[in-house]
């Protein structure tokens, strides 16, 4: 979440009142923001660079406010104040208007085809007769910076340029040229540079160096000229010094160049809606015309108001409240989403202003209503439906095993799922190519390069970190390792493992072996070849020669145990002998009755099932149950009845059951309840008592007027 720093006193002045820190914190919370920190420039500098550097800095109190990442309209003081004032009903949300220039001829930005290869889009607008003060100016610059960091994705998607319109003259040309051919005096420099020189000049600039990569390797760099050949900017790097804005600037030309047109429009809208407040005609923006290489023209800013219709029922239901339609409309209006009741049912028409680009579907509107209502005011309710809890069988088995392994005197360790390549290969005396390990492309440290393929290194590192504890150390872990597996959609799968280690003055193979025996006892696997488990001598470079055995369960190898090789111990900085055991847990599943859920999604479109045997007729005394009306009638009928007829299941239930073309959805609660119940008679349905009445009609039979509703 971006953090916006605003001067407290300025904020209170704009809000027209003062708050205590607690009150303002509360206000922020209600509005969906968070007052993150109360600080000052001085405090920040002294914290980051030491007290001595902070001596000259300002100690004006700053509020640092956390703003949701998609609320670009709250990234500056102007937007924050406007949002809060509307929220507190002190202000009506302003209407942003695009106006034609008084002269009649809009500023033109002509895009040439050369830009297509590097940065194809551009939009522009004019803020006419604006009045800057130092604070407004600072905020104007700050907002560009915040937008660049957020929605503009560090200028890669959009870059903003603002210019003193009176220093340049249109029409403007947005083109792309080889770096050597671009030459101008960049912002805050004293002499002219070519674009190529600039790129090397800014290599060391702590701020600008992060943007160079966006165009560095391109054959042509984007550039905007005015009609006299003056460079306005070389997006997304730097503006020209010539057109830079100052406190005295009256008319501002705003241009946004982009690789993503949607984002460019959002950014332009945001810049002009926020600062048109300071124009002589507040909240009006003078349009600019963009001419595309194909001759097409477009007027910007769009400042589009969109209208959505939704029902207050939808909002009430989703939020879990019950407010009248008018109230919901008021709540939304408080959030700058001007809303009115249309009078058609519980319909509300919501107008989404150009500042709220984050509202893209109905649930965003619902969220704002919930926020305005106050999350803490939503009453607690219990779900209307019951559900049956179920454990994931593998986790159930794991939980049971963990309990008993701890009871067997072993201590559980919790180790990293990631490790270095060496941990799972060289250190264990194996080759990395043999490990089936999953490799991380962008590891943060050398310690976390791969997903572990074995739990053993984690346990050995845990022992190494606890060498000072009294011996013996007895550790275990049951957790997942990750192995490459081409049969899976992602090419890898988890495998649940059980690993234990015994570290003492003597190797204690018998202790680890005993733990294996105990584990098998817990899993109800007897010690026997064939159907049970057994161990047999094996060779493994991790273990001391002749001191390693392979564990077999029903004839299949499931793991190994043994005394670790002294070289392995040495590589983990261990000085005592150690015996260890690692085995798969998953083969022991299936001894429980649960059906396993799986996360694999069938790659084939939908899961095709054989269509259920088509019932002879869907016509019943309740109406046609293949149509919603018939289903509803049946649902109503079953609201206070357990069976179609009488007080026990009969053939009448079976007949109506068969007439239903499909299982009813949960919306038809009573019907669904009855359906599930009758379905449970599937096997014994032949033995159900005969029906007294007739409920299902033949497909072409004339409707027989059976008064089912008065039968009982």
């Amino acid at each position, binding site marked *: 979440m971006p953090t916006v720093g605003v001067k407290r006193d300025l904020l209170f002045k704009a809000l027209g009142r003062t708050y205590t820190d607690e009150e303002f914190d509360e206000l922020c919370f209600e509005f969906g923001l968070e007052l993150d920190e109360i600080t000052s420039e001085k405090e920040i500098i002294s914290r980051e660079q030491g007290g001595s550097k902070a001596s000259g800095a300002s100690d004006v109190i700053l509020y640092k406010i956390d703003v949701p*990442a998609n609320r670009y309209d709250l990234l500056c003081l102007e937007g924050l104040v406007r949002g809060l004032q509307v929220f507190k009903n002190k202000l009506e949300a302003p209407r942003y208007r695009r106006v034609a220039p008084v002269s009649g001829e809009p500023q033109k930005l002509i895009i040439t085809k050369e830009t297509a290869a590097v940065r194809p889009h551009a939009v522009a607008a004019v803020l006419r007769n604006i009045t800057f003060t130092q604070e407004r100016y600072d905020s104007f610059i700050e907002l560009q910076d915040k937008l660049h960091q957020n929605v503009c*994705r560090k200028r890669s998607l959009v870059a903003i340029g603002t210019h003193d319109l009176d220093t340049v003259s249109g029409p403007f040309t947005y083109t792309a040229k080889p770096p050597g051919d671009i030459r101008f005096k960049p912002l805050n420099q004293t002499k002219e540079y070519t674009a190529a020189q600039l790129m090397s000049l800014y290599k060391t600039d702590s701020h600008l160096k992060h943007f160079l990569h966006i165009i560095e390797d391109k054959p042509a760099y984007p550039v905007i000229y005015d009609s006299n050949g003056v460079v306005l900017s070389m997006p997304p790097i730097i503006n020209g010094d010539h057109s830079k804005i100052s406190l005295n600037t009256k008319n501002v030309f705003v241009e946004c160049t982009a690789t993503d047109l*949607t984002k460019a429009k959002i950014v332009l809208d945001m810049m002009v809606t926020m600062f048109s407040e300071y124009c002589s005609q507040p909240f009006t923006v003078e349009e600019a015309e963009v001419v595309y290489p194909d001759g097409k023209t477009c007027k910007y800013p769009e400042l589009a108001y969109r209208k959505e219709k939704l029902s207050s029922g939808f909002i009430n239901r989703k939020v879990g409240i019950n407010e009248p339609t008018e109230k919901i409309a008021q709540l939304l209006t408080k959030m700058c989403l001007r809303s009115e009741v249309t009078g058609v049912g519980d319909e509300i028409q919501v107008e989404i202003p150009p500042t709220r680009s984050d509202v*893209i*579907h*109905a649930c965003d509107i619902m969220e704002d209503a919930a926020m305005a209502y106050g999350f803490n005011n939503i009453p607690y309710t219990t*779900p209307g*439906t*019951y*559900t*049956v*809890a*179920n*454990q*994931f069988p*593998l*986790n159930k088995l794991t*939980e049971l095993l963990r309990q008993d392994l*701890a009871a*067997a*005197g072993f*201590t*559980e*360790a*919790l*180790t*990293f*799922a*990631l490790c270095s390549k060496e941990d799972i290969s060289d250190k264990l005396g194996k080759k990395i190519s043999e490990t089936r390990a*999953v*490799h*991380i*492309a962008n*590891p943060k440290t050398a310690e*976390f390069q791969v*997903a572990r393929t074995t739990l053993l290194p984690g346990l050995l590192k845990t022992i190494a*970190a606890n060498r000072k504890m009294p011996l013996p*150390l*007895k550790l275990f872990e049951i957790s997942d390792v990750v192995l*490459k597996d081409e049969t899976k*959609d*992602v*090419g*890898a*799968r*988890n495998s649940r493992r059980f690993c234990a280690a015994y570290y003492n003055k003597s190797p204690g193979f018998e202790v680890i072996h005993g733990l294996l025996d105990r584990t098998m006892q817990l899993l109800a696997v007897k010690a026997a070849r064939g159907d049970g488990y057994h161990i047999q001598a094996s060779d493994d470079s991790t273990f001391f020669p002749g001191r390693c055995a392979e564990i077999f369960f029903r004839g299949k190898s499931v793991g190994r145990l043994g005394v670790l090789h002294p070289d392995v111990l040495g590589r983990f900085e261990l000085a005592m002998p150690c015996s260890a055991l690692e085995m798969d847990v998953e083969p022991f599943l299936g001894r429980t009755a649960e059906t*396993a*859920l799986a*996360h*694999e*999604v*069938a790659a084939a*479109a*939908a899961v095709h099932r054989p269509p259920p045997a088509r019932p002879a007729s869907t016509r019943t005394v309740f109406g046609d149950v293949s149509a919603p009306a018939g289903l509803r009638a049946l649902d109503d009928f079953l609201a206070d009845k357990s069976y179609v007829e009488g007080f026990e299941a009969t053939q009448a239930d079976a007949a109506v059951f068969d007439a239903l073309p*499909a*299982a009813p959805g*949960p*919306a038809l609660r009573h019907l669904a309840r009855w359906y*599930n119940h009758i*379905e449970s008679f599937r096997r014994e349905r032949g033995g159900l008592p005969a029906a007294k009445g007739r409920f299902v009609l033949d497909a072409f039979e004339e409707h027989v007027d059976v008064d089912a509703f008065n039968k009982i």
Partner: protein
Amino acid sequence: MADTGVLETLLRRIEKVDDGVDSLEVATSLGVDHQVLVGAVKSLQALGDLISAELRSSKHWELLGEGTEIAEQGSHEARVFGSIPPEGLGQSELMKLSFGKIGFSKAMSNKWIRVDKAHEGGPRIFRTVEDIEDQVREKLLLVQRGNSSKLEEKEKNELKKRKLLSEVTVKSYWITKGSSFSTTITKLETELTPEMIANGSWKEKKFKPYNFEAMGVAPDCGHMHPLMKVRTQFRQIFLEMGFTEMPTNNFIESSFWNFDSLFQPQQHPARDQHDTFFLSDPALAHGFPPDYLERVKKVHSEGGYGSQGYKYDWKVEEAQKNILRTHTTAVSARMLYKLAQQERDPGCHPSGRVPPDRGRGGRLRAHAGGPHGHPARVLHQTRDYQAPLQAGLQPVHGAQHGSVQLP
């Protein structure tokens, strides 16, 4: 237990006197180390009220090594004086003696000797007085004979400064008869034995009292990891609320299920290299449900299903990138898709799902340690792909109400 001989001798000594004996004196007279006697006293005390012993401490002065030497042979300066014959001694000769250097200056300041530097054959030393009085030696002899009280404090401190004397504290017991004094010793039993129970001899025996102040022996136990215990608790809470646990044993996930299907746009900062671990091997995922993939693509790039969409060029290549699952909501996405497929299925029950498991990035602020814990490691874990209690515990309301809405 101390030697029975010493115990009995001690008891007999105590019997003979009316008031009591000092352990130090008894030790000296018996010719045993004082510590042996202290052991005997402790043993007797453990036997009940046989004796009573009162701890006393006394201070006295003792000669140190150099002090003893002086007491025996005289002070260095006196020995220097003594070694000079009437005809004098060459200075170099004197300096060869062990006490020569130290004694020389002191003898000079006492004006017992003089140096004739102009003497032929090098400087030569002569006596200046006929007789001397070796006060240092006499003082030390007083101390040695136990008469240190005759010396003034100032004198003793001066000798202490010269490291000839030291003051030692001696702890001894003043032993008197106890209420149940006797010269015969009955040995106390330490523990009840099976034999005693079998033959009933425990009735006759006296048992040594336990020391209830001591700590017990630590049990040989294992235990579960504190964080895992917390996870078990959380899991239990959700099970009690009727949630079904989702299979979250898939750390490797495709960007498609982790981001795209959850409507996270492809330029979202969370999908940066900084915030997500991508895989180099296996780098790409395959086999997405094709119709669903089309729907996801459509809602991202053009909108639909009531959404405006993000309106950008959605690329399947980006969705294919394999990552370390950044949240267990990725599993929710898969489960929702599957539930939506089952919608038409008879016997579909409402269900809540809960995955309390690992995702990348930490939400867990834990610093539990415990005897075998390693707090630093635990904290690490929250930063590096280890958040056992990661979020993603939200009930799936759509699924609860049977109206799963996926793009």
